[in-house]
């Protein structure tokens, strides 16, 4: 039963890992840029949701679309002002830019919000559903459900809307997309904004069980990269599989080993996957 419980917990947390990582993989898939600052947008999403709760009394789950919208706009502006300039630059310049962005965002948050931990109080925060011997934590379940919903929404958007198809076309071949009358530049902006917005959305939905602080990104950045590379860099479905896998591996490893070794077990699996299947679980050859 402990195993079932662990898998259940792992899947729920993995769903959240998936949605925050989809943003990262989307940016890479469409623009070919590895955004090291991605986890900082998770932090921003948490703060938007926190202030929506503190000032407007909005539940973080309801504030998640707001967090998405605010960070979407910020992402669009950042892409226009900064990222666009390094699109054709050497990879090193792109890395410097996004790492610089990480440092600036984190320190700006420290200046503005102070370094304390901020936490919301919601009625469901300390409740759980009991299914026989199994416990399903309500805040985890809510975060999972919201993640699945946003993941599905993205899937439908990419699959059937004109913008989604245009974005995929740009990802496959920017030149051909341009010849078909697609504004590749605008698609890049949309992809970046959508990517960071989605990560911010994930930040908002985990706020009921975590605390917001300017340095929270550091706890997630390595996880996000693990998820994305495990699933296959640039593949949205891969991020979903990777996220769930990371959640379950972490949760199961805690059954057999001390919780301190959680990430050790994760990285052993990670290295094994990379050695045997360098493209990642669902990675297509790029």
């Amino acid at each position, binding site marked *: 039963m402990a195993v079932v419980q662990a898998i259940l917990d792992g899947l729920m947390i993995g769903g959240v890992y998936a949605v925050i990582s989809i943003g990262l993989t989307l940016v890479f898939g469409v623009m070919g840029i590895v955004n090291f600052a991605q986890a900082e947008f998770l932090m921003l999403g948490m703060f938007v949701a926190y202030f929506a709760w503190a000032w407007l009394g909005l539940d973080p789950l309801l504030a998640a679309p707001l967090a998405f919208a605010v960070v979407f706009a910020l992402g669009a502006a950042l892409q226009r002002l900064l990222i666009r300039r390094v699109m054709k630059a050497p990879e090193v310049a792109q890395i410097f830019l996004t790492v610089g962005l990480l440092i600036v965002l984190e320190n700006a948050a420290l200046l503005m919000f102070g370094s304390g931990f901020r936490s919301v109080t919601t009625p469901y925060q300390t409740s759980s559903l009991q299914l026989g011997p199994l416990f399903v934590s309500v805040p985890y379940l809510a975060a999972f459900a919201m993640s699945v919903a946003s993941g599905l929404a993205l899937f439908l958007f990419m699959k059937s809307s004109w913008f989604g198809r245009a974005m995929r076309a740009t990802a496959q071949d920017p030149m051909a997309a341009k010849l078909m009358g697609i504004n590749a530049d605008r698609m890049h902006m949309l992809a970046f904004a959508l990517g960071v917005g989605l990560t911010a959305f994930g930040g908002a939905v985990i706020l009921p069980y975590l605390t917001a602080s300017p340095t929270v990104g550091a*706890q997630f950045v390595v996880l996000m990269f693990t998820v994305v590379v495990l699933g296959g860099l640039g593949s949205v479905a891969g991020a979903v599989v990777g996220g769930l896998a990371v959640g379950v591996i972490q949760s199961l490893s805690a059954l057999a080993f001390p919780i301190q070794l959680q990430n050790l077990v994760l990285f052993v699996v990670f290295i094994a996957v990379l050695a045997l299947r360098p493209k990642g679980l669902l990675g297509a050859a790029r």
Partner: protein
Amino acid sequence: MPGTERKYGLGPTRRHALALTALGIASPFVLRDAVAQGKAINVGVIMPLSGANAQFGINSRNGVELVADEINAAGGIKSLGGARINLVVADSTSTPTTAANVAQRLLTQNDVVAILGAFASALTIAISEVTERRGVPLLTMSFSDQITGRGFENIFQVVAKASAIGKAQFDGTVAIAAAAGQKLDKIAIMYEDTAYGTSQAAGLRDGAKAAGVQIVMDEAYPLGITDVTPLINKLRASGAQAVFPVSYLNDSLQIIRAMRQQKIAIPAIGGAAGYVIPDFEKGLGEFSEGVLSISPANYDLAPELTERFRKRYGYFMVHEALEHAVCMDVLAQALEQAKSTKPDDLRKVLHGTRFEGGWTKAMTGGAVQFDKTGLNTLSVPVMVQWRNKELVTVWPSQVAKSKAIWAS
């Protein structure tokens, strides 16, 4: 001010400009020397003002500032001609390497007579390596056993050691449970794997072993943990009658919430740090009511002193602020007695004196006296309980302000 020179320059020749610029650059140093002759004593304050432990660092700095301002308002250090205390505050961030660098800088550039800091044991240990080499006193309220356990001569710790605090956390709990008619047989320990968590857990383990109580769960977890569910699953399966979490704020909120989710109603007895600050109550609301914690000191033991803190900063005087205030007061008393700012003289006075009066009255021993290793031998930890947004001292009975409520 380099920007204002031109106004006073008569005919902006190059020579004028150069001379004035030189003066502008030199003026802060000249001025500082002038102030020093007007008798200011530089005291270094190194605290984590950013990063994971920043809240505690800010609290601590507030405590030191309060006392320094009071001393200056009352006429400074009288035996040194009314010299003022001048605090040189520096941010150690939450990384030990930075803490050591900052200490080095204060000693070489700011000429500090002593250093106060730095809340987290890991930071204090890094700073102490520097102060020990330079022979400058370091006064601290960090309490990992390593701090006084290395035979250093220049470290002074105003509170009990982590292992003693861990043992008191256990003993106090047993006493409180017994008073409520429950005998503890099985307990669970969970702690974050830093210098502080590890030493305090060792104390808990010793206490349990001595009392013949079975430890059914004993788990370390990394600082900054984002998912405590596996820990709480283990706790539920363990059948413990009480749980002893030793953690900072972020993890303490997650642990208590996850326990409530899984309807685990056994008492949680926190290990100070995250359990005894206003944010704990703010984050948990009604779920904080009745949570017990060990604490090296508590503000309700000397309200006449600690209310001054609440008046100035708007929240109760958390223990790290209180103990750092005591550090500052003890240093001021030592300066007064030594009639000197030389580190060697200060060290001698700090080692050989029983400090009484002032803020030392807020400590459990009512005074401060350091032994050979630099440990204040008079301080004993207390158990506190959250009651209606305040922390009430409930153990040991000599100092308790109220009887503990045990919810088993």
